[in-house]
């Protein structure tokens, strides 16, 4: 699997580049997901976010998600870029692009990928609110490991 399909970057994400990675003559549908920094969460105002990653493992886990996707949805191709560091409102934190001959698979595979990112990829978000700061984990958002789902595979 091409390593560049799965990246952790510190500079702004260029959507067109992520889309280009999955563009193919046999694809009729490309779906993308952009996770952007939202100003308000549960009534609290975000000033900026800080993302941290365990970079080599995060890239491995993104590639694992890619294998899962391409196993579950035949003929799909996926690329994922996650940005880390200091992000402002409306900045793109993550971009996922999936191409497929048909659109149904492109939507399903894309949504599967973002769900898995939120479960198994070692990346952490620190919210800097107007009135404080917190590392976001299962205490504030959803439980991050429903049913112990990081799929521990034994060697």
């Amino acid at each position, binding site marked *: 699997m091409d390593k560049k399909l799965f990246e952790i970057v510190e500079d702004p994400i260029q959507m067109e580049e992520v889309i280009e990675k999955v563009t193919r003559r046999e694809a009729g549908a490309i779906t993308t997901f952009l996770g952007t920094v939202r100003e308000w969460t549960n009534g609290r105002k975000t000033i900026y976010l800080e993302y941290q990653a365990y970079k080599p493992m995060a890239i*491995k886990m993104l590639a694992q998600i890619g294998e899962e996707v391409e196993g579950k949805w035949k003929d799909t191709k996926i690329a994922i870029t996650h940005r880390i560091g200091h992000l402002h409102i409306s900045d793109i934190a993550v971009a996922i692009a999936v191409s497929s001959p048909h659109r149904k698979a492109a939507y399903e595979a894309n949504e599967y990928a973002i769900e898995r990112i939120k479960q198994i990829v070692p990346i952490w978000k620190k919210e800097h609110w107007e009135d404080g700061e917190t590392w976001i984990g299962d205490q504030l958002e959803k439980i991050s490991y429903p049913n112990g789902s990081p799929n521990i595979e034994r060697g």
Partner: protein
Amino acid sequence: MITVLLFAELQEATGRERIEVEVNDMSVSELKDWMKRKYSLPQIDRVMTAVNEEYALPTDRVKSGDVVAFIPPVSGG
């Protein structure tokens, strides 16, 4: 010697990104218990562990030369 990597809240609680631990051959859960006592980290109980960049079980053994990362609940995306 084992290398321990700390992220997010664990990094801030300890003030450390990386710790070298002078032990050989212990289980992941024994290492967690040791970390919990030594650095006062009650939250380590709800944290996943990766050994050499793969998620590990509490019963997995950790040996000299391994890189162990404690992975607080992730919040990417």
